[in-house]
């Protein structure tokens, strides 16, 4: 894990800055090209024309106005999850329970919104619901956080178990408590379209994307520019040293978990308030599992993650309709992301080794 901490780009003296940016660009572009080539070979083996597929995905996800808007809409929940993961991963906390936090945030929001609307105006309901999403996500992280902080119990296993638990619990809530009596399939009451997050003027993109971009940037600044963020990074890089430095590691661990899970809960809230308006039983898009690689690809960098999330959203949107049009199911997008991740890791390794030899 220390290898990750080393590779987070630091502040370099002016002259090296440009070289560093060039190097970073090459380290990102080379794996992208390799992944696309390798993916193309797989498509050819399956008897599909890779160029036609890539061209279609690019056109559908990026180059048409409608597709671009869908891409931006999809980015909102992914970015918020990414923000939550960046906080945790930089602090060396492996919060892998995002799916449960996301779903519970979504369910509580969708259950509360119609009730709150009876008494309060939209302008108040939307922020209250977002806060509810944050609180729900954070609550779901309390047990793993305490177990990690007090007893050092590995958070990978506990957060994962809470995620399984949360996924089922979300279904239980929908089926037993929040089931909208007017529907046959179990789902929560639908939020009227007019009461959802306002759309950005002239587009179909809801304003959640603006919230998400602001949150990612704030998180990035918090982690790199504030003493709180730097404390978290110290805990992540070397917990023993953090204790010796007099940091309250237990408290910081709990805070990290709460922020991370809270942001992921917020992501669930925004996806409901912006796009769906309701949660169906057994709905689980598994966004957080998919975002983990993106956060690594961006090396825990907030600005980098915006780029990768945009790229991935476009792939998802393009890949969805390519399934119908080109006959390549959207699963292929998963293969591409995995290839990208693996090639990026290898290129990074080779680069690291080359630099080590140069010294």
């Amino acid at each position, binding site marked *: 894990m*220390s290898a990750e901490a080393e590779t987070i780009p630091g502040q370099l003296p002016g002259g090296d800055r440009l070289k560093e940016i060039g190097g970073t660009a090459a380290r990102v572009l080379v794996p992208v090209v390799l992944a696309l080539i390798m993916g193309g070979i797989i498509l050819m083996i399956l008897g599909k024309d890779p160029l036609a597929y890539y061209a279609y995905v690019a056109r559908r996800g990026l180059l048409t106005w409608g597709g671009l808007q869908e891409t931006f809409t999809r980015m909102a929940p992914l970015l918020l999850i990414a923000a939550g993961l960046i906080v945790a991963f930089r602090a060396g906390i492996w919060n892998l329970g995002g799916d449960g936090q996301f779903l519970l945030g979504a369910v509580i929001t969708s259950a509360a919104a119609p009730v709150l609307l009876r008494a309060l105006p939209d302008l108040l309901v939307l922020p209250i619901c977002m806060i509810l999403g944050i609180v729900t996500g954070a609550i779901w992280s309390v047990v793993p956080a305490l177990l990690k902080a007090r*007893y050092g119990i590995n958070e990978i296993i506990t957060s994962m178990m809470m995620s*399984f638990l949360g996924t*089922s619990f979300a279904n239980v809530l929908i089926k037993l408590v929040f089931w909208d009596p007017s529907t046959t399939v179990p789902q929560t009451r639908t939020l009227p379209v007019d009461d959802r997050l306002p759309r950005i003027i002239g587009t179909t993109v809801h304003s959640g994307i603006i919230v998400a971009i602001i949150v990612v940037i704030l998180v990035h600044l918090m982690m790199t520019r504030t003493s709180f963020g730097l404390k978290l990074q110290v805990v992540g890089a070397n917990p023993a040293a953090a204790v010796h430095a007099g940091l309250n590691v237990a408290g910081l661990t709990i805070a990290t978990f709460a922020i991370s899970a809270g942001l992921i809960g917020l992501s669930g809230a925004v996806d409901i308030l912006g796009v769906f308006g309701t949660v169906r039983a057994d709905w689980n898009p598994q966004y957080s599992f998919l975002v983990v690689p993106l956060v690594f690809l961006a090396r825990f960098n907030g600005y980098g993650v915006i780029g990768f999330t945009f790229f991935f959203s476009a792939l998802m949107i393009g890949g969805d309709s390519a399934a119908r049009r080109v006959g390549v199911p959207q699963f*292929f997008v998963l*293969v591409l992301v995995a290839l990208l*991740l*693996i090639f990026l*890791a290898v290129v990074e390794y080779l680069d690291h080794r080359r630099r080590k030899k140069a010294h």
Partner: protein
Amino acid sequence: MEGLLTQPFLTSLLFGAVTAGVPLLLAGLGEQISEKAGVLNIGIEGMMLFGAYCGFAVALYSGSFTLGFIGGGLGGMVVAAIVMLLCIRFGINQIVIGIGVTIGFEGLTALLHFFEFAQDNPSLPAAPVFALPIVSDIPVIGPGLFAHNALVYLAVILVGVLTWMFRSTYVGLNLEAAGNKPAALDAAGVSVLKTRALAVLSTGFLAGLGGAYMAEVGAGSFGPFMTGGAGFIGIVLAMLARGKPIWVLLGAALFGASLSMTTALQVAGVNVPTDVVQMLPFAMVMLVLVIFARHSVLPPALATPYVRGDRG
């Protein structure tokens, strides 16, 4: 409710528990080997899926369940070889690569399924059953527990073999050293990287075998994402078992029973959401952790690559 307590119902409940538990057992035992050696194998879900796909495809085309199991194990090993190269040889972060291979093989097997099987959804005949003499004649328990595919008994025997191996063989002690104090193992003249590589490949084989069992025996067919998180439950079991194979067996039995209960209640048309039952094992495990919270026993070098002479 009385209808639930009939003999056929209880028998099918037990039978289902074993069928659901065996893949978890194999995955958990496999993961345990990796964790002992200091490798956190998050990619086990990918290994199970590819094992399930290969196992099903081989069994379908060859007509032999045994060849299918071997194919499944080898399929899991292929995925493990990728993890071995990237994480052990190159020392790249194990969590990144683990999630990477899981996502990649989720996609790849779903893709292969789409092009190969989606049109006519082939399925296998019922798997051969090896009923143990005498004990399988006991009412309820006999047909529930002792009339299964031979792989089930092999998996249970493996628990004993691994217990012995971990405790009393050089291989077992080397594994443990690779996870606890890799530098000491290195100094003793045993290659840490080779020990870990062996561990990861064994994990791949067992996880693939578990996946193949799911496809060939459990479902009789292959479907996208069919392992449904079994690999992750395997990771949980291995971590909770604190290095003891017998605890993996008990954990797998617990999770298998609750999975089987879910299906049984559905069939019986009981009006409790199955999600409640699905929550039970996880809730129980969390509760145990909260009540008996102690420092969990995990190898100190878990998830850190070994670099000779590195003091990190």
